[in-house]
């Protein structure tokens, strides 16, 4: 007879695994990938492929030559990070910059800390902010979306994002109303389906929400976190809209433009870098919502979600300390229920 195995209890497992979780996320990103392909064509494919391949390459290389630990590139986390990095980039970005961003993402933000699960900051966002600051020109050139089957022009035309357009106009002294109805401004419907300038993954709200719903259904993410972000951003920007509609954009505009939904659904929910308890997640989400709107309204960057998530990532350990799960035995009811 073969040797019996001795191990501590429990002796069964629910057979979920890290890679299953990660590939669920990949699956959830497919609608957004399709949307980006629809609007930005083969450039979107190029950017996504380059990001994923260089992320995998970097992960493999660091594990093989520097950490000398087990190789775990097939756990899917680098694929998720790679796609999310691509989602945060404009379609026209040169490939070498994507490679640099992916290397920083995996090399600096992830493997330096020991790899999956140990990084305090969201790798894809570190990669993205790194690129934003390093390559400001290319990172702020947004190709105008053209649905795949529409007649294509010879070379890509770039235009501003809705947020950039608005901010620029208001800063230049135009009223908010004029800007909202400016000819370049995408309509509400376009914003919802994603026919507007922006990074690959952020343009189509509906596609992202679809993916988010799938992840909630699969219990990969908790709905409280994205909801708290969106709600806070809505209320906070709405407050200022009520105070002075001539300067501030309406809350729906804030929700549907920029990467707010992308960040809320796919990036803030990264379990590695977000708090552990639901209460903590809500605090985290409220923080992100406030910071995002603050940066959008008063900061120099038209878009604030990346920074907001990174800053709240820094708060995550403190939040984890402050919002422990409710310990059993902490609220002692003396009265019987039955």
């Amino acid at each position, binding site marked *: 007879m073969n040797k019996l195995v001795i191990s501590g209890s429990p002796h069964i497992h629910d057979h979920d695994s890290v890679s299953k979780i990660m590939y669920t996320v990949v699956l959830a990103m497919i609608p957004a990938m399709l949307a980006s392909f629809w609007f930005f064509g083969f450039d979107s494919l190029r950017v996504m492929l380059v990001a994923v391949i260089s992320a995998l390459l970097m992960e493999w290389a660091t594990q093989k030559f520097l950490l000398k630990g087990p190789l775990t590139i097939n756990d899917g986390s680098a694929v998720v990070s790679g796609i999310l990095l691509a989602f945060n980039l404009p379609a026209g970005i040169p490939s070498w910059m994507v490679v640099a961003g992916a290397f920083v993402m995996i090399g600096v933000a992830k493997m330096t800390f020991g790899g999956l699960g140990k990084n305090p900051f969201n790798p894809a966002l570190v990669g993205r902010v790194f690129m934003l600051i390093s390559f*400001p020109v290319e990172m702020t050139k947004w190709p105008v979306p053209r649905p795949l089957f529409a007649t294509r022009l010879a070379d890509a035309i770039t235009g501003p994002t809705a947020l950039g357009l608005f901010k620029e106009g208001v800063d*230049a002294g135009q009223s908010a109303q004029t800007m909202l109805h400016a000819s370049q401004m995408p309509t509400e419907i376009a914003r919802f389906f994603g026919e507007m300038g922006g990074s690959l993954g952020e343009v189509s709200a509906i596609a992202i929400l679809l993916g988010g719903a799938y992840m909630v259904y699969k219990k990969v993410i908790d709905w409280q976190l994205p909801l708290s972000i969106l709600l806070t951003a809505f209320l906070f920007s709405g407050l200022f809209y009520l105070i002075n509609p001539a300067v501030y954009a309406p809350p729906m505009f804030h929700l549907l433009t920029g990467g707010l939904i992308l960040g809320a659904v796919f990036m803030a929910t990264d379990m590695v870098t977000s708090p552990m308890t639901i209460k903590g997640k809500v605090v985290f989400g409220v923080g992100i919502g406030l910071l995002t709107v603050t940066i959008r309204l008063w900061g120099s960057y038209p878009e604030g979600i990346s920074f907001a998530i990174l800053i709240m990532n820094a708060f995550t350990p403190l939040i984890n300390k402050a919002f422990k799960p409710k310990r059993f035995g902490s609220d002692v009811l003396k009265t019987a229920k039955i």
Partner: protein
Amino acid sequence: MAGKKESNFINMFTSLLVISFVAGISLGSVYNLTKAPIAAAAAKKMEDALRLVLPDFDSIQPIKLKSAFEPDSLLVFQGFQNGQLTGWAVKTWSKKGFGGEVNLIAGFKPDGSIKNISVLDHKETPGLGDKMQASKSDWYRQFLDKNPADFRLKVKKDGGDVDAITAATISSRAFTEAVDRAWQTIENAKKEGGNE
């Protein structure tokens, strides 16, 4: 360490005093020695800045002119060569930069055309808005020798003649506005015959 002094009050007091005394003497002397070069260096810096934006001059006269847009006034340096006015250098600003205020010195020839522009400080994004600096790009050259009378000081997007820096319209707008402020101020002063 045989001769180490004990830590009593007199010892502490005197040793510190002696050290301070020696330090004081030496520092005072060094200061006296470097005073002249420091002053010279400071003067040279100002002069260099003006030399850059003003036509040849041998003397400078600072004046204050009422700004064209606001009640405040701007600092203007008039350059003279042999008593002849050779141009104005206006310390001007704009608050519409991407990162906030932009300060620059714009130099004009007597006919009102731009001699040169030198950015004093700004908070624009490196790689984007900071291309307005002469050390970063040649973008500012499009202003040289243009006379704002026929070169409309507005970016093309706003219906002017200025080509904006790629992806940095806001910074370009601020820069242009500051130059415009300087030019209008000079022009107003010219019309009114100056108000020193």
